[in-house]
């Protein structure tokens, strides 16, 4: 078992997930931390909104994919 993540490490993985697919261990650690940390629940929700609106604003291919769904 890896050490539990800190909130700070959680933000790093949330950013990394935009660049690459996280490993299953990283995904699990991330999910476990967020499940138990209300601060990170709020923060990851903020990042979700931010990323979606960045895509919409820039009109990049991610926003096109989202629009097709």
């Amino acid at each position, binding site marked *: 078992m890896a050490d539990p993540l800190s909130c700070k490490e959680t933000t790093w993985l949330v950013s990394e997930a935009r660049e690459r697919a996280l490993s299953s261990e990283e995904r699990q650690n991330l999910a476990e931390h967020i499940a138990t940390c209300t601060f990170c629940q709020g923060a990851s929700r*903020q990042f979700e909104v931010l*990323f979606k609106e960045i895509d919409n604003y820039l009109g990049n291919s991610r926003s096109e994919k989202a629009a097709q769904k």
Partner: protein
Amino acid sequence: MDAQLRKSIAEEAAEYRPMLYRMALIQLKNADAAEDATQETLLAAVEKAVTFEARSSLRTWLFAILRFKILDIMRDQSKSRKFNSPLPTDDRGIDDYETGAFDVLFDTNGCWLDAKDPWTNPQTVAEQEAFFKVLEACMTRLPARTSRAFLMREWLELEPSEICAKLGISHGNLRILLYRARMQLRLCLDLNWERT
């Protein structure tokens, strides 16, 4: 009909000139080149006015035109090799590559110091425009190198390896620049976006 459409596109597009110029300047690092790219984008928009589909937003359409212009210019530059060199040293403070600037948000164990309001996506057009206004202002305030790397990735959609080559930085440095951009944008929006 056609002339009228061109005229209205020209007028509306002119409102986006300042942001188009800023986006071009971040990438091209040269005021004349950025002005040219902006001008050409606005002209192309008027020229192609009939192909503009009202269901997409005028801003994203203009960004798409400018994006192709910048990618073209970058391609020419890397052929002539002039621009491939890393930026002058004065633009790359060591701070650029540290994540430490955000340590103040966490305690010594790396825990957030305060609760985070769970945002919801803007629902109406007016709410979205309000969000975009703050996002623009926040992007403009990013350090030059950070915003350049960030927009190369998120807007120009270059591969990380291409960005590293163009900026003359390592892959690790790029990941830190992108992390910093995202952390800074979240914080800036949290402070300045008036949620309804």
